[in-house]
């Protein structure tokens, strides 16, 4: 073998080794950042279509604004502008600009990149509060979508009370490292004393009407946020302003620690990591609700080694965690507290429902907080009949669903709220209802479920999981509201009946008597006498109908009186609103 040939062989072998190395490298397991994961799976968080992308972006921005205002006790005033800026880069899309401005506390400039550009950076994650946002995914996903579709991040302007001037910047997501990157930072003059403005430019489509439309979201949001003043400008519409109807801030209850019976083993172990080096006993007492010294004693009585409770939580093994978890699951614990839920309240709902349009009558019900599936839940229902008679009387009622005061607009049929709605027999309350379907007619039925631990079916929070207990609780609220509403309907039916009876008397009385007189050739004098007699007869029927109407009316009045006694505010509000109108 010649030297040159040897060299050539050697080079070949080297090359083969290199290929093998590189192929090995391609099989290597790598980790990707949270941002990478979400940037590839934006459909999971509400960006599955262009229409949804627009709605989700708006929703996340408004939710954040409202949460921030509530956290700091500021009555929210939000300005929303949605514009179409021309054709988008994706086929059949528009370039959409959404701008949401609030009068909230503003964001510390150092936190701006975290808020808008970092996934899972949240002040609310797992805190067990009834806030709209929970995980810190949504707004960063909106930034990612804008970045992916139109190569521009979120444009943010913000100012806290402590700042002399407002800061303006563009935040982008560093997808590789799940980090927010600030660009074009500058200070600006003339901004409001405190507040935040965020602007997204992205590819999407604007759908205003229908259940999944932007207007439905905006009107739903105003319904469940009576304290919100909303200004919005959307394409093809003038600037609209919906004034707040309540000047009282909802008191967001303090967070509660999770209840051990609501957790799975993995969550239980992960929860321990938040506490670092503390004794197991202390961790159980501090980290969970309804775990007391008595509970620990019961654990020991049940066969648990007392020494385990003395160990540091970061030093125990998985087997020990499992033992502890199983033991706790088998203990009788008090149900979680219901103090952590937040209700809109019947009075505020009664006021707010009038903002949806002119209504004939309505009924509102706020159930007492209760426990469903070991989680505190509060359900509220508002039903209104719209004055608008152009609505097809055979079309299903308009259903507005809310979870923690955020409108739910997709995947209706699987939702606990819709399942509860169809399970109620609305016919007994005077509404038409095809079998096993939603009732029909010009009604709006709004159902709000509030809970620090709402179980959604997916990460984009579009549907509440339909557990039997929750469906039953919602159903009860609907039945109560239906009963209240039926008194209005009953009175209206009786009034219609009376009107119909009077019309019958006027129309058919003379025809009947004249016909009889023609057949027997009776003189006019007899005809007149018989007509008078018939009027008396049928008049008695009308009197009965009048009495029935009177009864229906008094029943309704009695119901209103009862409500007034319980909530003196409602009447004051109703009167006030009417006077204002």
């Amino acid at each position, binding site marked *: 073998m010649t030297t040159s040939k040897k060299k050539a062989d050697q080079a070949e072998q080297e090359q083969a080794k290199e290929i093998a190395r590189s192929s090995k490298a391609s099989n290597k397991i790598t980790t990707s950042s949270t941002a990478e994961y979400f940037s590839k799976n934006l459909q999971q968080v509400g960006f599955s279509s262009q229409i949804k992308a627009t709605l989700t972006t708006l929703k996340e921005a408004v939710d954040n604004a409202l949460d921030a205002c509530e956290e700091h006790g500021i009555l929210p005033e939000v300005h929303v502008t949605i514009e179409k800026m021309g054709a988008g880069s994706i086929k059949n899309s528009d370039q959409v600009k959404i701008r949401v401005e609030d009068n909230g506390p503003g964001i510390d400039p150092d936190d701006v990149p975290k808020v808008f550009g970092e996934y899972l950076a949240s002040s609310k994650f797992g805190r067990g509060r009834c806030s709209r946002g929970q995980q810190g995914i949504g707004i960063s996903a909106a930034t990612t979508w804008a970045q992916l579709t139109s190569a521009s991040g979120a444009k943010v302007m913000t100012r806290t009370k402590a700042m002399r001037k407002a800061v303006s910047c563009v935040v982008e997501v560093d997808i590789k490292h799940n980090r927010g990157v600030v660009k074009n930072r500058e200070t600006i003059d003339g901004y409001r004393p405190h507040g935040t403005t965020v602007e997204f430019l992205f590819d999407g489509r604007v759908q205003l009407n229908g259940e999944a439309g932007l207007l439905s979201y905006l009107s739903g949001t105003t319904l469940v946020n009576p304290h919100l003043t909303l200004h919005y400008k959307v394409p093809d519409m003038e600037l609209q302003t919906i004034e707040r109807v309540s000047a009282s801030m909802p008191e967001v209850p303090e967070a509660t620690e999770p209840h051990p019976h609501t957790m799975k083993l993995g969550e239980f172990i992960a929860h321990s990591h938040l506490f670092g080096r503390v004794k197991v006993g202390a961790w159980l007492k501090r980290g969970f609700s309804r775990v007391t010294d008595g509970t620990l004693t019961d654990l020991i009585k049940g066969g648990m080694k007392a020494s385990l409770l003395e160990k540091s939580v970061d030093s125990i093994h998985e087997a020990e965690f499992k033992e502890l978890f199983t033991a706790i699951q088998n203990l009788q614990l008090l149900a979680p507290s219901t103090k952590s839920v937040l209700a809109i309240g019947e009075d505020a709902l009664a006021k707010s429902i009038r903002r949806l349009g002119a209504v004939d009558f309505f009924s509102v019900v706020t159930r007492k907080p209760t426990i469903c599936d070991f989680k505190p839940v509060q359900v509220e229902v508002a039903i209104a009949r719209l004055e608008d008679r152009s609505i097809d009387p055979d079309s299903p009622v308009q259903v507005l669903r809310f979870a923690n005061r955020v409108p739910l607009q997709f995947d209706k049929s699987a939702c606990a709220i819709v399942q509860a709605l169809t399970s109620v027999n609305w016919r007994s309350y005077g509404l038409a209802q095809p079998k096993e379907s939603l009732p029909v007619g010009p009604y709006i039925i709004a159902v709000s479920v509030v809970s620090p631990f709402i179980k959604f079916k997916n990460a984009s929070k579009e549907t509440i999981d339909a557990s039997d207990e929750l469906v039953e609780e919602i159903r009860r609220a609907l039945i109560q509201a239906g009963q209240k509403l039926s008194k209005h309907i009953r009175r209206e039916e009786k009034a219609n009946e009376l009107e119909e009876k009077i019309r019958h008397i006027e129309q*058919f*009385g003379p*025809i009947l008597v004249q*016909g009889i007189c*023609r057949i*027997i050739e009776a003189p006019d004098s007899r005809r007149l006498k018989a007509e008078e007699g018939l009027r008396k007869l049928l008049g008695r029927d009308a009197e009965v109908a009048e009495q029935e109407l009177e009864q229906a009316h008094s029943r309704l009045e009695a119901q209103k009186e009862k409500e007034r006694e319980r909530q003196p505010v409602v009447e004051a509000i109703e009167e006030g609103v009417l006077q204002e109108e």
Partner: protein
Amino acid sequence: MRSSRKAGESAASDQIPKLSKELCHRLLQDLERARRPVLYATKCSLDNALYNHRVGYLTPGDKKVATELNVSSVKKMSRAIFMLEILLRNIDTGAVNTKRELYYISKGEIKHNPLLKPLDFSDQPESDATIDFICEMLECYREELNCYANDRGGQTYSQQLVVTETLPDGDTAVIDLSKLGTSPFQPKNRPQSLKLTARKKIDFCLIIESEGTANTLVANGFTKRHNCILIGAQGVPSNAVRGWTKLIQDQLSVPLYFFGDLDAYTLQNIYRTLKAGSAASLIRNSDYSAPEVRFLGVLPEDIKKYDLNDYPVRESDAQEGRALKKAADALKNDPFFQDKRNKGVAQILKWLLEHKRRCEQQAYFTVDPRDPTMPEKIIVDKIKRGNYV
């Protein structure tokens, strides 16, 4: 108002105007006194049906349906008086109409008198219901109000029968059925104006459920070989068939035989109606039933005797399933089937319920497929030997 007539007693047609005027007088009197008129009508349903073999047909019991004049019924009453006026005018002038025509006549009246607009019928079922309501009030049948359905069924063949019809203008028409060739005589829905005579003694009258089979028998010479009357019933007997059979029974005194399928539907809906009337027509069964009709077949024993092709009832079929259910009810509640004199037909019903089989009248053609007169031979043989119920 309470009817002055006894239960089951039908109004003669010349009485209708009188009864109507009486009714209107009472209505007017009550109204003049501001008293609420109440109208009573015979309840036409099985729970108000009585059967006595001496009478021979279903008669109404004492149950009445009361209609009180009030805000809810004033429209119905006004429409009834309006329609009654039209019908009385027809009786006066001798004009006749179908229900459909009356619907359009009422439309025309309303068109020419806008004051009557509230009475307008939106479709024919509404005007039909009004006519039925008038019949119930006056306890008459609609033919008495000159309202006729089209003449259906009852095509009759005979070489001996002569029909004399008195026309509304008093003229008479004589129809000799032997002169009609192969054409049948079509009886009217209200055959009471016909007089029957026989050119020669008639031995029997045979009513056949299937119109087609009746035609076949005639074409094969049945009426030539036998002194008889042969009628095709065409399914559930119409008023024409029922009244016509009654007329033959009353005027000619010949034995009558019914020949049809062996199934629950035929026994209850066709044979029973022909023989004893129906629950829905309690007030007119007296004129529309022929209690002397006998059930010639197909009898259950014929299946074995003649080796007839029968087959199981398909209970999954809605109509057949319903007929069986109705048969079970009939055995429990129908006074006709409960009467001892009708034990024979009741037993056939029981047999049908038990065996759940049926056999069609045309099955007689299987006995000797090459002899077209075989069904005729069997029928005549059965009559001769008294093999009927």
